[in-house]
């Protein structure tokens, strides 16, 4: 299948990416070339009954349910640009200034 510029723009918005016109043009062409190859998977016909690979085919080991403090090698106060009274201080977002919630 082929994707349109509008679809790519919509997907980029979902992924929180801004694309310039030239980026959009290039990316649409490249995605269509990639999807052309990916569509070869259709040759395999119905895959009814074949399970999807994933976590189910690998048993993850469970650890004992006990809480342990995970001591950081470097304390957060030394990592943060600003740290006051046990909290990270981050720049105020303009949206908050404008009263947006």
């Amino acid at each position: 299948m082929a994707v349109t510029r509008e679809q790519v723009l919509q997907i980029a918005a979902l992924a929180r990416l801004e694309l310039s016109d030239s980026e959009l043009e290039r990316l649409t062409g490249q995605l269509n070339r990639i999807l052309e190859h990916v569509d070869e998977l259709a040759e395999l016909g119905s895959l009814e009954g074949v399970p999807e690979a994933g976590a189910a085919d690998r048993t993850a080991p469970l650890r004992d349910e006990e809480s342990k403090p995970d001591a950081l090698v470097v304390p957060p106060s030394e990592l943060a640009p600003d740290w006051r009274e046990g909290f990270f201080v981050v720049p105020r977002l303009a949206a908050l200034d404008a009263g947006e919630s």
Partner: protein
Amino acid sequence: MAFPGLADLVAEIRSGKRTAADTVAASCRAITEAESGATPLGAFLAFDPERAASDAARIDAALAAGHAAGPLAGVPVAVKDNICTVDYPTTCGSRILQGYRSPFDATAVRRLREAGAVIVGKTNLDEFAMGSSTENSAFGPTRNPHDPTRVPGGSSGGSAAAVAAGLVPAALGSDTGGSVRQPAAFCGVVGIKPTYGRVSRYGLVAFASSLDQIGTFGRTVADAALLLQVISGPDPRDSTCADRPVPELTVALEMDARGLVVGVPREYFPPELDPRIAELCRAALDRLARAGAEIREVSLGHTRYAIATYYIIAPAEASSNLARFDGVRYGFRAEADNTVAVYERSRSLGFGEEVKRRIVLGTFALSAGYHDRYYGRAQRVRTLIAREFQEVFASGVDVLFTPTTPTLPFRFGERSDDPYAMYLADVFTVTANLAGIPALSLPIGAVDGLPVGGQLLADRWNEAGLVRAAAALEQALQEG
């Protein structure tokens, strides 16, 4: 500089024939020299001779005080820059993480340090490990030490080049679709991707979580295997890291090829394979046969769907994993007048072209209406690919042998404009990640001075068999 093999190097440091300080200083001098001048190698994104010297002095002091020395006492090791370290930045080769410093060491790094290794620096990579040439790094490319006009492979190109250029005797990389084995082949060193779950991913910045594994580089099979031995084993901080005993790889190194059944999948020798690489593969198989191995042709019919499968699953997982880089929690942040615009602008300016391409592709593959057609289908084909490997190994084949790459190292820019052509560089390596099996690349010869790698693959958890076959082949090739 030429380091001896790791076993000999550690023995010399332990016996006092050389010190950790001298060894690490020699490595740092070599790095400084390689990274200066008109055409720097571009293998390192960060290195710190003073810090390394201080770590090495601690090892020497411990040895002098008679404390037990670890199996890597005093060994300088380089670490790919998508693996977290407290004492160096971890950038993933991306502007969005420029200057980011992790508050913890990755488990693999912690184990290296506990074994006495000294981390001398962080190595270059394709941004977030997405690429096959190291051209996608935001901080400039790495050059191939065998020909500076050519790529070192990727995405762990910095680690492979650092070992190949003799700057360090060993290094860590990560392998999601071939990112250890392909640069190992292009740079003429040994690279191992372990079984999925053999090495903890704690502290490896996630690209595609069901495919990512930390792997090792060395100049010889023994060196790469020793590093793997040290970093392997269960870790309560990674639930996908298996609670299984780690095999003694040093024992496997001593075994020969007699009785070994080597499968050769015909699908890995297609017409488009460079005939000079095919010829070297045939010669390597001939050596293995003469050393007592049985060579058996096999078929892995779904191989032709592997690239398409991989380039749906890996971008899908990447689109989810990279959602965390939003300009708020880590590194680079662009200013904008509302929250969503901060996210969008930070990500758009912080990520490079290949990363954005894969995020968009992955978001598309997971989006409503296309999920079953793309992601669901790819996950089913992945099952078929894994089953095929299981059947071949269940039929009595101990290891498979294939070329690692279809071509010789290419020139800078040669594939930059065609993403799919670049993806095809991984055509022989992605299957091991999709199936979760261990695989290794080792040098099997050269064409016009450019190295060629051969790939061995084994059943899940059979790193011992993989290392045995690789050491036997290495030995057979040396004997000529």
